Structures are given as C-alpha cells and as structure tokens.
C-alpha cells in the first residue's frame, strides 16, 4: 500500500461527524466569548460611565488577564485542544500562546529560555499584523488622503 492509498483509507475511516462537532463547538464557544464580552462592555459603559472605545480596551485587558491566569493554572491547554478555534481565534489564544511558551521555556533560563521564546508563537501574529497594517496604511493615506 503506498502513501496515497493509505491517505484515502484514513480519510474513509475518519468520522465526518467529528468535523461537524468541532465546527459546532467552535461556533458556540467563540460566540459565547463574544456574548460575554458584550455583557461586560455594557456593564462597563452603564455602571462605570466608560466611553465605548475605552470599554473595549478594558475588555481586551480583562480577557488577556483571565486567559493568562487560566493558562498558568494549567486549565487552558486542555480547553484549547477541545474547543480549538473557539479559543485560539479570540484574544484568548494570543494570551495563551505567550503565557504557555513563557512557562515552558522558563527552565532554559531567563534570557535564552523565557526571553528568547516569549513571542515564539504570538510573534507571527505581531509581525504579519504590523507589516500588513503598515503597508495598507501607506496605501490608505495615498488613496483616501
């Protein structure tokens, strides 16, 4: 049996419902994060008298704090492997990747371990985000003035 035949056989036996189940879980988990975020933002605006943009910034910090804590306590790795896109696509995934690489590489020392690997996973988000946003902004100010 060659590689392609084997691949076909694997596909044949991979249950289709698993993809559907994953998709439903990702939708529900991701949706819940957005919903809870909206609840928190509404509370911030109504009870603390914050402006809209200010409340979004606080929500972002709050989500990062919670997910860093849950990662450090060891819950998050398990949840991410179950919920997948529902947790790694929101800001939670960004915070999780930084905290988990900081924890994992701490044993290699503070400079060569923690320091060098701090942005190991989140680095690509920051890099490609900054590069694309920069050139789009250059294009934007040329086009829109």
């Amino acid at each position: 049996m060659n590689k392609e035949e084997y691949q076909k056989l694997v596909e044949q036996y991979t249950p289709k419902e698993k993809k559907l189940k994953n998709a439903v879980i990702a939708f529900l988990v991701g949706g819940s994060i957005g919903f809870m975020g909206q609840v928190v933002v509404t509370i911030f605006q109504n009870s603390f008298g914050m402006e809209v943009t200010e409340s979004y910034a606080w929500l972002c910090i709050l989500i990062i704090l919670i997910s860093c804590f849950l990662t450090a306590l060891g819950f998050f790795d398990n949840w991410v492997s179950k919920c997948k896109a529902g947790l790694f696509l929101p800001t939670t995934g960004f915070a999780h990747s930084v905290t988990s690489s900081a924890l994992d590489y701490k044993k290699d020392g503070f400079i060569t371990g923690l320091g060098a690997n701090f942005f190991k996973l989140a680095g690509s988000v920051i890099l490609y985000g900054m590069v694309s946003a920069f050139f789009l902004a250059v294009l934007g100010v040329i086009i829109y003035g």
Partner: protein
Amino acid sequence: MIFLNAFLLSGLFCLVAELILDNTKLTPGHITSAFTVLGAALSFFGIYSKLIEWGGAGATVIISNFGHMLYLGAVEGFKEMGILGLFSGLLVKSSAAITSVVIFAFVLSLIFKPKS
C-alpha cells in the same frame, strides 16, 4: 439586538477558522496570523468599523481586531504627524493588548510552574 449579534459574529469567525483548521493542513499559528492580516484588510476597506458597530464586542474579541487597531493607529498617526505618524502611531491603539500580555504573562510565569 447587540448581544445576539455579538454571539453570531464571533461565533461565525471561529466557525470559519475551525473549518479551515479541519479541512486544510494549516496550523492555528497560520490561521491566527491570517485572520490578523484579514482584520487589517477589512479595516482598510472600512468594513471592520461597521462590524464593530453591528456586533459590538463580538468583533473586538477576535484577533482580527488587532489588525484593525494597527491599521487605525497608523492612519490616525499620519493625520496628526505625517509620515512620522505612520511609524509612531502603528502600535498606539494596540499597545494596551501587547503590554498587558507581556506584563501578565511574565509575572505569572515567574509565579507558576508548568504543569506538563
């Protein structure tokens, strides 16, 4: 009904990401980077601000919001300071996210031990 919109919008983003993850060979790292770039692109076309208007926090909790914030920061920096503003403004709006990640992750990694 902004609460329902928030649920639907962030749920839909995650659903699309999950479908990409399950049906291609791309890793979560590829997908989050792609969605950040997508956020900047949607911001460029003026769509992301509309998404935030429609879905509220549903749009701002997604990583694409990072790209949107980067784009807005650079454009607003340009309006204030010209070309220098493109450089100095890029990170202004997303600074809260990056700084809080750095501070919380560093402090917590000092306190806690890895589980595995």
